[in-house]
C-alpha cells in the first residue's frame, strides 16, 4: 500500500487543478446560457444594438467576462483545500458560500476516476468519491497523483471491511461473498460458477462495438432532425448550393448519366455520413477500450480515449439492474446494461429530497444477452435465481388489458382536446362538426389505440421468492430488476377505473428510484406488497 505524503494537514491540490476549475466554471456558466442569452437579448434590444456597433466596448465586455471566469477559477482553486486522515477525507471549498465536507471512508459507495489527456501526461487524475448520506456533497479531488488515488482506494476498501467486521456479522453471510444462507443448496448458482471467475474481465468492447454504440445513439436521430431543420434554414442559399451543384454536374458531365437529383441525394448522403461518423467518433472517445471487470467485491468499468473514466461500484451497494435496448440495439441483438447503486440518503435536519446527489451508475453501453444474465447472477449471487433481465423471456406475465385503455385515454385526451379548443377558437363552433376535425380525432384515436396496445404488449412482470423484474417500453424495451430485501417502501395505488375493475398499480420504492407494476389484479398487488414488506422486515442482510 502506498503511503500518503502527510496525514492530518490541510493542503491544496496540484496547481494543474486550475484547469479543472476553469472547466467547471465554464460549464456552470454555459449551464445557465439560456438566461444569459435572454438577458443579453434584452440588453441588446434596449440599447437598440448600439453597443454592438462600437467594436471597442464589445471587445472590452468579452475581455471582462474572460477575466471574471479566470479569476473565479483561480479563487476556487485557492479556496479548495483537503485533509487526509486515517479514516476520513475532509474537504473545504468555496469563497462566497463556504462548504466543509467530511467523508468517512466506510460510507463511500464507490470511487470514480477521470483522466483527461493533460492529466495523463502529468500523471494526475480527478478522483470522485460517491457517498450515501451527504446531500449536495461533491467529494471530488481534482488533479491528484496516482499514489494518492491508490491510497484512497485501499483506505476505502479497508474502511468497508472494518465496518463489516465491526458489525459483528459473519462475513460469509454478506451478499458479496457468495452469500445467501441457502446458497449451499444451489452451489451451481453461486457467483463465479457460471460467470467469469473473480477478478476476470466480464466485458471488453471492440472497435466494431463502438460502431454499434454510435449507430444506436439517440444523438444520431437528433442530428438527422437538426440536418432537416438546417436544410429548411438554408433555403436562402439555395441558389448558391444549386450553383455548386451545377459546377459539380458539369465537372462530372463527362462521366455521363449524372442528373441533378442524384447529385442532391449524394450530397445529402455525404452529410448524413459525416454526421454519423461524428456520433461514432463520439462513442469511440467515450468508450474506447472499455472493460468491465470484477475486482474482489466490486465491479470496475474503465474506458475512454482522451478522457479516461473509471467507475467502481461495490456489488452489495447495487440496488437495481436495468437492461434496455432501442430499435437499433435490437437489430444488433445487443443491450445496454446499468447497475444503479443506492442514491444519496437524506441528511438529518434537512428535507431537500430533490437536490440529493445520486451516486454514479455502472453502465455497460453494449453487451449481449448471456453476458447480461451473467452480470445479474454476479450481482444477485444466489438470490432470486428465477429472475431474468432478458425482455424476450417467456416468464413475463402480462398486465391487465385495461392498461391499453388507460394509455390510450392518456395519449388521446390532450391532442383531441387541444385540437377542439384550437378549432373552436379559430373557426367557431361550426368547424368542430366538420369532416377535417372528425378525421383528426379519428386519426388520434387510432394512433393512441395502437400506442396503448403496443405499450401493453411490452408491459410485464416476473418474480420469484427473492426479487422482481418489471418490463416496459414502446419501441424499445427495458427491464428493471431488484431484490425484495433492498426495498425502501411500497405503495399500492388505485384509480377510479382500476377500482371498478378490481385492479391496482404497485409502486416499489428503492434507494435508486421507483419501479412500477401497473394494472395487476388488486389481490396480486396486495399480496406482493405484503410479501415484500415481510421480506424487508425479516431480512437481516445489509441492503447497501
Amino acid at each position, binding site marked *: 500500500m502506498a503511503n500518503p505524503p502527510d496525514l492530518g494537514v490541510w493542503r491544496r491540490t496540484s496547481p494543474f487543478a486550475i484547469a479543472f476549475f476553469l472547466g467547471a466554471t465554464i460549464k456552470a456558466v454555459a449551464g445557465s446560457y439560456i438566461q444569459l442569452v435572454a438577458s443579453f437579448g434584452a440588453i441588446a434590444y434596449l440599447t437598440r444594438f448600439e453597443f454592438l456597433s462600437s467594436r471597442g466596448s464589445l471587445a472590452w465586455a468579452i475581455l471582462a467576462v474572460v477575466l471574471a471566469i479566470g479569476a473565479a477559477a483561480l479563487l476556487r482553486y485557492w479556496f479548495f483545500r483537503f485533509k487526509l486522515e486515517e479514516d476520513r477525507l475532509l474537504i473545504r471549498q468555496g469563497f462566497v458560500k463556504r462548504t466543509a465536507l467530511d467523508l468517512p471512508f466506510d460510507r463511500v459507495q464507490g470511487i470514480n476516476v477521470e483522466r483527461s489527456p493533460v492529466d495523463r501526461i502529468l500523471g494526475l487524475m480527478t478522483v470522485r468519491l460517491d457517498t450515501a448520506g451527504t446531500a449536495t456533497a461533491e467529494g471530488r479531488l481534482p488533479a491528484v497523483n496516482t499514489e494518492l488515488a491508490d491510497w484512497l482506494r485501499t483506505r476505502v476498501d479497508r474502511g468497508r471491511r472494518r465496518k463489516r467486521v465491526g458489525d459483528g456479522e459473519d462475513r460469509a453471510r454478506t451478499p458479496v461473498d457468495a452469500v445467501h444462507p441457502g446458497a449451499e443448496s444451489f452451489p451451481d448458482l453461486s457467483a463465479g460458477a457460471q460467470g467469469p471467475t473473480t477478478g476476470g474481465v466480464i466485458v471488453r468492447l471492440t472497435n466494431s462495438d463502438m460502431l454499434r454504440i454510435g449507430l444506436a445513439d439517440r444523438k444520431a436521430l437528433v442530428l438527422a432532425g437538426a440536418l432537416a431543420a438546417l436544410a429548411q434554414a438554408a433555403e436562402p442559399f439555395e441558389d448558391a448550393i444549386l450553383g455548386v451543384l451545377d459546377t459539380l454536374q458539369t465537372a462530372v458531365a463527362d462521366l455521363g448519366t449524372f442528373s441533378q437529383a442524384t447529385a442532391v441525394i449524394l450530397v445529402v448522403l455525404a452529410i448524413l455520413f459525416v454526421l454519423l461518423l461524428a456520433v461514432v467518433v463520439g462513442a469511440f472517445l467515450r468508450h474506447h477500450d472499455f472493460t468491465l471487470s470484477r475486482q474482489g467485491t466490486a465491479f470496475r468499468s474503465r474506458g475512454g480515449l482522451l478522457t479516461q473514466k473509471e467507475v467502481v461500484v461495490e456489488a452489495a451497494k447495487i440496488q437495481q439492474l436495468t437492461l434496455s435496448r432501442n430499435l437499433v440495439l435490437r437489430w444488433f441483438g445487443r443491450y445496454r446494461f446499468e447497475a444503479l447503486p443506492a442514491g444519496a440518503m437524506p441528511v438529518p435536519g434537512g*428535507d431537500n429530497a430533490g437536490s440529493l446527489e445520486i451516486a454514479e451508475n455502472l453502465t455497460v453501453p453494449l453487451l449481449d444477452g448471456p453476458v447480461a444474465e451473467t452480470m445479474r447472477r454476479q450481482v444477485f449471487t444466489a438470490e432470486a435465481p428465477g429472475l431474468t433481465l432478458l425482455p424476450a423471456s417467456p416468464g413475463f406475465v402480462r398486465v391487465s388489458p385495461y392498461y391499453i385503455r388507460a394509455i390510450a385515454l392518456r395519449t388521446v385526451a390532450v391532442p383531441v382536446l387541444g385540437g377542439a379548443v384550437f378549432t373552436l377558437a379559430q373557426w367557431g363552433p361550426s368547424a368542430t362538426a366538420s369532416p377535417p376535425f372528425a378525421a383528426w380525432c379519428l386519426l388520434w384515436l387510432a394512433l393512441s389505440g395502437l400506442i396503448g396496445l403496443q405499450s401493453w404488449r411490452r408491459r410485464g412482470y416476473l418474480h420469484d*421468492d427473492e426479487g422482481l423484474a418489471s418490463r416496459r417500453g414502446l419501441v424499445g424495451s427495458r427491464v428493471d430488476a431488484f431484490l425484495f430485501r433492498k426495498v425502501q417502501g411500497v405503495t399500492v395505488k388505485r384509480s377510479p377505473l382500476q377500482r371498478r375493475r378490481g385492479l391496482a398499480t404497485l409502486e416499489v420504492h428503492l434507494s435508486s428510484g421507483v419501479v412500477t407494476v401497473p394494472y395487476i389484479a388488486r389481490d396480486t398487488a396486495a399480496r406482493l406488497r405484503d410479501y415484500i414488506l415481510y421480506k424487508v422486515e425479516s431480512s437481516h442482510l445489509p441492503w447497501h
Partner: protein
Amino acid sequence: MFANAQVPAEALPHAEQVDWQPLHSRFARRLQAGVLLRVLVFAGIGAGFHYGVATGGMAVLITAAPLLPTVAWTVFGAISLWALAWPAIAVPYRGYAVRDRDILYRSGVLWRSVRAVPFNRVQHTKTDSTPLDRRFGLANLSVFPAGGGAHKIRGLGGDTAERLRAFVSARIEAETGKATDFGVGESA
C-alpha cells in the same frame, strides 16, 4: 409464477385490514383556513388589478370586453369555493396506521394509494408545524427512507405527532441494534 413455499401468502398480515387512524378532527378546518388566507390575498390582488384597469389607462379593455370582469370573478369564485370545500371531502380519506414493523399512510379520494414504509429502512424522523398548524394545535410527521422522498403525514395532533416520532425513533434504534450493516452514522 408466484411460488411461495416458505410462507403461505394468506398467513402474511394484510396491510389493508388494519385499524386506520383518522387525522386530527381539526385538520380539515386548518386546511380551509389556509385556503381562505390564500383566497383573500388573491382576491385583494384581483380587486386592485380590477380597480387599476377600470380607472387607469386600460379602461379600453373593459369597454372592448364588458363581460370580462364578471367572467373572471365568477371563475375565481367557483375555484375558491371548490378549494374551500375540498379539504372537508379529502381529509376523511386520509389516515395512517402504525404496525409493529412499518407505518402505513393512505390518501386519495379518486386516485387512492396506500404507502408502507418499514421501520428498518427509515433513516430519521422529523416533526414540524407552521404557525397556522400551531393555532389549530396540529403538527406534521416526516419519516425519511433512503433514496430521497420524505414520507409526510400532515395533520396530526401536536402530542400525537411527537409520540409517534418518539415511537418510530425507538423502533429504528431497535432495528439498528438488530440489523447488521444498517447504520449510516446517525445512531453511532
